[in-house]
């Protein structure tokens, strides 16, 4: 079974989904990611789906789950690069992924994570 690579970039992890995923690939990604966050102490996760032309409720659920699970491990998740047609379809399907932070592209997602990290650290010191 193919696995989605998880790249480490400083305090953040980057996942670029480029293939039409099998359901089990998505499950494995979730396992791998949680293990990696715990091991590396990463504070943020970027999920880049700019290459995906379909996101159904299963993948939607995986993204929402990852976001909630990461939060428990003290890491924020930002979903980046969703295509217009995919966004329209997800909304029509009834999935607005309200708990998930989003950004236009990897760069803007990275800025969002960095800013959140600063705010968070400042709050921790209070």
């Amino acid at each position, binding site marked *: 079974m193919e696995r989605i690579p998880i790249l480490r970039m400083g305090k953040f992890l980057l996942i670029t989904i480029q293939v039409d995923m099998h359901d089990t690939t998505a499950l494995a990604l979730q396992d791998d990611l949680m293990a990696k966050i715990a091991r590396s102490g990463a504070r943020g996760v970027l999920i880049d789906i700019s290459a995906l032309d379909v996101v159904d409720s299963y993948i939607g659920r995986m993204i929402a789950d990852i976001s909630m699970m990461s939060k428990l491990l003290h890491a924020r998740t930002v979903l*980046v690069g969703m295509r*217009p047609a*995919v*966004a*329209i379809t997800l*909304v029509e399907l009834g999935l*607005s992924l309200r708990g998930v932070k*989003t950004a*236009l*592209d990897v760069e803007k997602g990275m800025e969002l994570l960095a800013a959140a990290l600063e705010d968070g650290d400042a709050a921790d010191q209070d």
Partner: protein
Amino acid sequence: MLAQSGLTDLLRNQTKQLHAQWMAELAAGLRADSRIGATELSEQTGEFLRILSEAAREGVWDGPQSPQLRPVLSFLDEVSRSRAIRGFTPEETATFVFSLKRPVFDHLRRRFEADPKTLADALWTATELIDSLGIHTFKAYQRTREEVINRQRTEMLELSTPVVKLWEGILALPMIGTVDSARAQTVMESLLERIIETGSTIAIIDITGVPTVDTLVAQHLLKTVAAIRLMGAECIISGIRPQIAQTIVQLGITLEGVTTRATLADALALALRRSGQTIAGTRPS
């Protein structure tokens, strides 16, 4: 059958006379017309008679549905099409075929003068044929008009949804007029596409020019806001007039989680602040 052979004979052997009489009939009916020249009209009628006589040659036809009439019908499709596009009225277009009646009837009357029964049969056959061709022409005309209307509708939809760049990273969509489902969909798609093209992080939808906001319009707005957020941008709705604010609440629509402002200017100010930009006056205060 004698009656039918009378018509067939006319179409096959006296095409030239028939053509001349038909042209005279058409000329009497229509004033000088800039939309179609006499030469073009003559070519059209000539070609039509040629195709019709060809169909007659194929032998006995069993009524207007007969398959041998197919080339005639497709020729008429073309004629109606070009006339509809040139702005002919439906009557003028149908006249093209119906004006053939008098020359054909005249001929049949002369030919079967001595035999009233055959004459009646022949007239009936001719009437049936010409009427069905006329109706076909009319239908084809209508089809073309519908195509034209649909195309114009699409063009109008595109025209009525101008997405403009207000500032670096800030897009605005000023909506004007009544919003229906088709329009809301086009609007949403073009706004989302422009967000990607320009890399904008904030989109303002201004509804100052939308006369009424009902549940349907509100639903479309909410969907657009949700889709924009999924893509990683932010949406502000501006131009909510007092009576619209009242309607929204009275209808029980919740625009929860949606940032709204009274005017486009307020929305722009908010967008600038959120994107960390400021406008400074040039005159020192």
